[in-house]
């Protein structure tokens, strides 16, 4: 037995001739914030749909110890979800929406929702279509965070929000929602804004997991070096995963190369998730 919250083994899914998911295996422990990161069409949304029981799949998948497709109803009591196409009915009033969720979700805590809304400019009598895009997201987040769930799935949660709203979104999430009993799975293109929030990385490309690592591991294994011109040839003998020309320096990404060797080549730093992502995806496709 493990205490893993999600266990996927050999997950597969085809749409016609396209393999959207191909032998995907990974697991997620409680209390983690996992970034599922991949280019468009990599299989992120299909993977999330499988986890949420919204699609059939090949292979074995357990979420909170349940089969998401067969036991979706039970699963949904402990999982909440914000989709990139976050749709709330345009005609509904905020007050009605709260009533609806309160009536349908057993773990909805109305007072928590009211607490979040009290800090926004959202009026109870407004219809969704009268709210700004930022307000709709705030409303959605208030509804979802008020659900006492163990797993929160966020699919491109900040798409279309300005930078202040995005900042506020993650600040609220960390301050008022996340704790060691809860787990968050997030997909986003905005890698920079989540990279320090994540505890774990899952890179997916062409339906396959190409990197599965805790952030701690990433920081130990990988290093970004600003290589001085005279050391470029020597640096290449350590087989960098990626190379990019900078101002008077060549930036190279190394894996499992002893730090002492790297320090002779130039300034050693921690690679950004974006740099790592580009290198790993290129490597996987080569």
């Amino acid at each position, binding site marked *: 037995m493990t205490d893993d919250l999600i266990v996927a083994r050999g997950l597969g899914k085809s749409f016609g001739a396209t393999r959207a998911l191909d032998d995907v295996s990974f697991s997620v422990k409680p209390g983690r914030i996992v970034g599922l990161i991949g280019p468009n069409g990599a299989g992120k949304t299909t993977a999330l749909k499988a986890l949420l029981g919204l699609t059939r799949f090949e292979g074995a998948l357990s979420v909170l110890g349940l089969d998401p497709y067969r036991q979706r109803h039970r699963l949904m009591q402990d999982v909440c979800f914000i989709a990139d196409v976050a749709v709330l009915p345009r005609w509904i009033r905020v007050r009605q929406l709260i009533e609806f969720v309160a009536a349908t979700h057993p773990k909805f805590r109305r007072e928590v929702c009211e607490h979040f809304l009290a800090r926004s400019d959202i009026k109870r009598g407004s219809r969704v279509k009268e709210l700004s895009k930022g307000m709709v997201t705030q409303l959605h987040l208030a509804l979802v965070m008020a659900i006492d769930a163990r797993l929160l799935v966020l699919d491109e949660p900040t*798409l279309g929000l300005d930078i202040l709203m995005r900042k506020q979104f993650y*600040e*609220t999430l960390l*301050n008022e929602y996340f704790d060691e009993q809860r787990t968050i799975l997030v997909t986003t293109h905005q890698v*920079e804004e989540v990279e320090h*929030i994540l505890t774990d990385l899952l890179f997916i490309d062409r339906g396959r997991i190409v990197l599965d690592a805790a952030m701690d591991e990433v920081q130990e294994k990988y290093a970004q070096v600003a290589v001085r011109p005279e050391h470029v040839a020597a640096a290449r003998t350590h087989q960098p995963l990626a190379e990019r020309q900078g101002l008077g320096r060549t930036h190279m990404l190394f894996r499992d190369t002893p730090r002492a060797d790297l320090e002779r080549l130039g300034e050693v730093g921690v690679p950004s998730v974006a740099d790592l992502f580009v290198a790993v995806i290129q490597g996987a496709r080569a």
Partner: protein
Amino acid sequence: MDTNWNDSLPIYRQLRDRVVAMILEGVLNDGDPLPSVRSVAAEYRLNPLTVLKGYQQLVDEQLVEKRRGRGMFVTEGARRALLKDERQHFLEEEWPRIAGRIQRLGFEPKELLEHLDKIPPEPAPSLKGAPEPDAAEGDERD
């Protein structure tokens, strides 16, 4: 998105250094509580494990102590211990470099002392209130 961190050191390490600077500057005094992990995580949008790791490092160095159920506090004598280390570090590592540079540039001690008055004070280190990025910046989407 943040100008708070540089990429030369892991963030937990930079967080540790920032708390150390706050203790040295007297922003945090012996016995003062550290801001909660949650509030620092939210403020900087860091995962709480990173903050915990930074704090744990301070605990390992006996600069900070955990008080059950109440959070983290600056250890009695932390500032004195740090100051001792820092002074030693300065004399052994930094001062020889600076002294060498002063010599190469041909400064007289008198000149440097006179110039001291013109140096503006440094802002005190803190765990909050970093300047906000411009709202219009980095608003690209795809």
